[in-house]
């Protein structure tokens, strides 16, 4: 990927190439600008920001806003900082991502390798979950969570995210397994492997790229979700996004922009990390099966 590709379809002259790089550079700067503003202002004392000059580099470098955002900023009524909510998010995201990915893989496995009558219709219905707007389900979902005794709990949020995520993960895994050789499944059947043994021993070990796609997709979506968090979380299960909102929207006292910036970066950090660690598998997984090779 990093090697200058020799199979570029169009060969360009030097002038053209310079121009292209220039434009690309411009776009990069444009996209990086907000991050620059956030990072720069999160390490300034507040008076440097209120004194104007958002774009300037800090004259006094301080990590105070970061520490404050993490451990002592006023969130709602408690001066706890974002840290307890960060752990709330982790406790919600990890099981939700794991469960929805495994369920998606199982669905994909059944829909491609254990075909049954009307399986395409079932797949179509599962896909439908991808297209239902969040707002529509808010009230029925609240009712259901109440009935199940999960209202206001982390597990309630996990359930909501799993239900919403399974449509996407099923789509990913179904398409990936559709090109997985069925002869392998048959060979394993003759070897005496059962339904789950085939899944764990044969299929999952070969699902790396698509699992990464599913995990990244689910992780970013669930981590960044605000609506479900704001609607269904209780006081002690609020995720990071809701806490960040409470921090920034606080209606009393001075607006500590540097703390807000630091908090926002903290909230975005895990998704950034996931992309950096697994990003190249993401593209690879999305392209899997599209070209022979």
């Amino acid at each position, binding site marked *: 990927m990093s090697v200058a590709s020799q199979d570029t379809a169009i060969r360009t002259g030097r002038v053209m190439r310079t121009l292209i790089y220039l434009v690309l550079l411009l776009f990069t700067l444009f996209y990086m600008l907000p991050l620059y503003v956030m990072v720069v202002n999160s390490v300034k004392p507040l008076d440097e920001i209120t004194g104007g000059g958002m774009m300037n580099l800090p004259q006094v470098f301080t990590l105070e806003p970061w520490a404050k955002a993490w451990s002592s900023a006023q969130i709602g009524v408690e001066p706890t900082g974002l840290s307890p909510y960060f752990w709330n998010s982790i406790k919600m995201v990890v099981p939700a991502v794991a469960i929805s990915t495994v369920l998606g893989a199982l669905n994909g496995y059944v829909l491609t390798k254990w075909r049954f009558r009307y399986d395409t219709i079932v797949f179509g219905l599962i896909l439908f979950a991808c297209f239902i707007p969040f707002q529509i389900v808010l009230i029925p979902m609240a009712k259901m969570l109440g009935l199940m005794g999960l209202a206001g709990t982390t597990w309630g949020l996990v359930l909501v995210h799993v239900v919403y995520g399974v449509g996407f993960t099923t789509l990913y895994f179904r398409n990936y397994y559709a090109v997985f*050789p069925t*002869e*392998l499944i*048959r*060979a*394993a*059947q*003759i*070897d*005496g*492997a059962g339904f789950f*043994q085939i899944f764990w*021993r*044969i299929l999952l*070990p*070969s699902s790396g790229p698509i699992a990464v796609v599913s995990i990244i997709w689910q992780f970013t979506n669930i981590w960044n979700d605000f609506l479900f968090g704001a609607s269904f979380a209780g006081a002690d299960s609020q995720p990071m996004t809701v806490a960040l909102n409470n921090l920034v929207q606080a209606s009393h006292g001075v607006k500590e922009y540097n703390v807000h910036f630091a908090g926002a970066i903290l909230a975005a950090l895990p998704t950034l990390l996931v992309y950096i660690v697994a990003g190249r598998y993401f593209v690879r997984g999305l392209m899997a099966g599209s070209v022979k090779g």
Partner: protein
Amino acid sequence: MGFLDIDNATKAYGSVEVLHNVDISVQEGEFLVLVGPSGCGKSTLLNMIAGLEEITSGEIRIKDNLMNGVHPSRRNIAMVFQSYALYPNMTVGQNITFGLEMHGVPKAEREKAMKEAAALLQIEPLLGRKPGALSGGQRQRVAMGRALVRNPDVFLFDEPLSNLDAKLRVDMRTEIKKLHQKLGTTIVYVTHDQIEAMTLSTRIAVMNGGYVQQLGTPQEIYDKPANIFVATFMGSPAMNVVKATVAVENGRPVAQVALHDGSPVALPFSQDNMADWSGKEILLGIRPETITDEDAADRKSSNIAHLTNRIVVTEPAGSDTFVTMTLGGKDVIARMRSDADVRPGADFSFAVNMEKAVAFDPATESRIAP
């Protein structure tokens, strides 16, 4: 009662019947080849024996145990797939022992069985590698090792050589035959390659359109094909089939066939009962190698017919020269020695071994003689 019995087996998808009342009984140690063009139902039949496809009606029995509805893993069979179907995430060793592991065989026994199979197939150095790092021939061996290690009652092969290049295919063919001779196991082997069928099998089932057209030893299939389909499918180049009229000359039945200029030539039959067809049209089947130059005619044959005909094309192939002429209005190929003096456009004197000729009924296309 055979070792593997297929009784009146039928396969239908919805209302479409793809396999019709197949009856085959395989004896222990037999090498049965199912051969036919694509879509003839041979792979479906194999999958039914394996239990990968359900049987719609009829019975399949292995060692007299009814197999209908029995899970593939409990039939004590092993299968080698066209794509080899090696598990990509496991090493060769793990691939070979996976089946044993799934059947709950203790680790020490698995290792021992793996070593034996690996030694037999000479793949010991590969045991630690992943299938992705193997060549086609090596994968083929591993796939056979995976089948061998189970010590099954019946081996099933689904076109195992069709992914190999021509040279390797011939080598592996010999390997498989050696293996069968050494182990004496019962094998059912599916292929569309008639040469594979002839060389490997102890018996062949030629299939077409979901029917078993003929079941017999390679020699029976080759010399006495049940019908025109079998006659032309088996053998390369294919058997020549030309229109002929039966007549009786000097008390002997003959086939009258038109030469290139339309004039008739009489080819005497070896079978007296062909006289019953006197005056009627038949289809005469002549294998290319039974048409030769006069010197190369089979001395053991009691019935050599002679005809002079014009050569249309010659195709030297090194070991033989294929000569095309027009007989009965059709191109007919003769297989000559490579040093036969043949030139296109020249008239040439051919010898036809009529002992080997086959006659078919043009209406039913089935064999009437011999």
